[in-house]
């Protein structure tokens, strides 16, 4: 059984309460009981709470909806040595993530209703945060035959994706989108033309040339995104671009949204806070797919989050161990963990005045909840008591030894950060409390 603390009423008093779902940012108190939010308003005070209520003085702190991470690669089933649902959920709680959305890139792939059921049951028994899962869009993520979208959705899959794989066959993609449309299923797709990626391992350009590494052009992403927009135009399917990384893609997305296509998009926290120069002398913890891009792309992505063109920020959590990372750059596996650092890394953007705090929190909670149709992402009365308390000012240095994830492949290794989650409440129970070491 997961280590839940007991569930008693909690009053988060004297907080700055931010609810992106209602565009609210005010000073007040938030009361939770029986696993739901009772109310959030100014001046509930100790007098207005039931007996046995824990009162936490949140002066100087921010209270917000728990984060919903739309893209996390977990490793269960098949790679439990890297990450289990239990360890991922511990990491999530420490990062303020109260709902993880698993990706189907497991062994076996999550392409069968029984495996969806396994994930949900296993999470219920071992995880300390909510776990939802996407299911594969095509069988075994091979891009050839569509999965049982209807049955998978009925089993609980919240969206359909081939995870880190791209569907290259346009006919398969068209039919799958058309079929998904009939079930009102959301299709999530990472657009990367594998032929244009070729042997590429980092962003194409001067830095790849200097390092003697094969480059991946931004066109590899943009070409397939453009194709997908045409196919969405043909099918009217609900579509979400899984990982936008460059200015070119933003232009395509902008046009699609202006044309009224049912399209939304994510960017990973890595692409919003890091760029290709961070790779420096072949640091494999900065090897991700799609690759870190140029600084001008990063700046454009942040602006796109601020304007709402990019809807969702996700962690792209992808645990890799020393056996897959302590290798020459071209041979190392791509991926970085991110559940525990997503919020603090995002606060860098807020501290630099690049992004309003409410926009950041909305892109990590309200927006994914709305797009996926999962509970949470709001502080409305009666909503699940998935709530985080953030100290926006506390300075800290990320020590990999403190990470809850089984793998330590974080690009924020030893990074100086300002602001972090100090308490994570899931369904009214405390799943994490920050204890400075």
């Amino acid at each position, binding site marked *: 059984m997961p280590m839940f603390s007991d569930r008693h009423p909690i009053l988060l008093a004297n907080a700055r309460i931010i609810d992106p779902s209602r565009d609210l940012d005010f000073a007040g108190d938030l009361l939770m009981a029986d696993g739901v939010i009772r109310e959030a308003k100014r001046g509930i005070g100790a007098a207005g709470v039931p007996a046995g209520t824990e009162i936490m003085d949140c002066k100087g702190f921010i209270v917000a909806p728990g984060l919903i991470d739309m893209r996390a690669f977990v490793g269960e089933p098949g790679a439990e040595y890297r990450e289990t649902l239990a360890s991922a959920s511990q990491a999530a709680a420490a990062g303020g993530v109260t709902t993880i959305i698993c990706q189907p890139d497991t062994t076996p792939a999550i392409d069968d209703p029984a495996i969806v059921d396994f994930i949900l049951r296993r999470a219920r028994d071992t995880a300390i945060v909510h776990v939802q899962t996407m299911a594969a869009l095509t069988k075994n993520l091979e891009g050839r035959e569509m999965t049982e979208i209807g049955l998978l959705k009925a089993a609980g899959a919240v969206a359909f994706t081939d995870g880190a794989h791209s569907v290259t066959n346009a006919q398969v993609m068209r039919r799958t989108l058309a079929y998904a449309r009939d079930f009102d299923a959301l299709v999530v797709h990472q657009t990367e033309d594998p032929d244009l990626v070729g042997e590429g391992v980092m962003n*194409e*350009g*001067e830095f*790849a*040339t*200097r*390092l*003697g*590494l*094969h*480059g991946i*052009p931004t066109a590899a992403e943009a070409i397939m995104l453009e194709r997908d927009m045409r196919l969405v135009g043909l099918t009217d399917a609900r579509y979400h671009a899984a990982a936008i990384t460059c200015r070119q893609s933003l232009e395509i997305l902008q046009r699609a949204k202006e044309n009224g296509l049912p399209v939304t998009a994510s960017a990973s926290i890595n692409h919003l806070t890091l760029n290709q120069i961070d790779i420096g*002398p*072949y640091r494999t913890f900065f090897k991700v797919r799609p690759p870190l891009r140029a600084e001008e792309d990063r700046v454009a992505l942040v602006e796109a989050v601020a304007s709402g063109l990019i809807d969702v920020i996700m962690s792209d959590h992808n645990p890799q161990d020393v*056996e897959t990372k*302590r*290798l*020459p*750059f*071209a*041979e190392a596996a791509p991926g970085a963990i991110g559940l525990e650092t997503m919020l603090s890394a995002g606060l860098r953007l807020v501290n630099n005045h690049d992004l309003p705090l409410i926009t950041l929190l909305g892109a990590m909670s309200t927006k994914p909840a709305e797009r996926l149709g999962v509970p949470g992402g709001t502080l409305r009365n009666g909503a699940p008591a998935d709530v985080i308390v953030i100290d926006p000012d506390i300075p800290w240095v990320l020590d990999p030894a403190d990470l809850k994830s089984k793998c330590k492949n974080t690009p924020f290794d030893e990074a100086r950060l300002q602001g972090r989650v100090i308490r994570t409440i899931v369904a009214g129970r405390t799943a994490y409390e920050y204890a400075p070491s």
Partner: protein
Amino acid sequence: MTIAGTSSFVLNRRHLLGIEGLSHDEISGLLDLAEEFVELNRQIEKKRTSLRGRTQINLFFESSTRTQSSFELAGKRLGADVMNMAVVSSSIKKGETLIDTAITLNAMHPDILVVRHHASGAVELLAQKVDGSVINAGDGAHEHPTQALLDALTIRRNKGRIEGLTVAICGDVLHSRVARSNIILLNAMGANVRVVGPSTLLPSNVERLGVTVMRDMREGLHNADIVMMLRLQRERMNGSFVPSTQEYFAYFGLDQHKLSYAKPDAMVMHPGPMNRGVEIDSGVADGAQSLIREQVEMGVAVRMAVLEALARNLPNA
């Protein structure tokens, strides 16, 4: 008879991982020291004792004839105990990783490791795990510093200088570590560097490395003092990067006619091994303007200079 060394140049670093980061003075210092070894190597008695007691391991994850034998000879002439390890045929096949190999070898206390690997950055990664000095003998498409140094020595001895010369580097720049190291070194020494080749064999944004990019041999070789040809791997000739050997030779192969675009006293270089009739015509390769054999001679001298200059900086030296 032995020739007493006059240069006391010390390379004030532990490893030689690339030309990137070397100063003008460090490059000149290495070339001056190498000059002494050129003379020594032409004597009957070629032995020095400066590396006596030192262990040098040549660790080659990618097969090589000339670079490995050049390093072996260089180490032996300086008195080191030299061991060659071709890892292509041993432990990597058993699943041992680069790091494991590094740690294993490090336990044998080598003073100097000469490393070649097919992946860019691999030599640097290995250098982080060992206690001795590491010399990069070529990593992926990244750097091959001793090749650039021997090319520079060859140029300097024949032209009397490097500064102000126009050097055209021609062919498969995309996959070439030799090209990258040469571009960095020649720029640091004040030469004008051009790269010439079809767009499919030029890396993206290569002009940002401080070179002029040309896609035509007539234009690219015009007024060049040095024409440096690069090897084109066979598997890249059949339609993937260029349509055919014939077409490549027609447009980018160096023959006497194309060489006539360069200065009359232009010299021809090639890092070897050559594909005769692909990137270079035999008449040119063996002709009066060719420095290709001299490059091999300079290779031993430059590697002795690098070994000596690093060894002078080793503990207890």
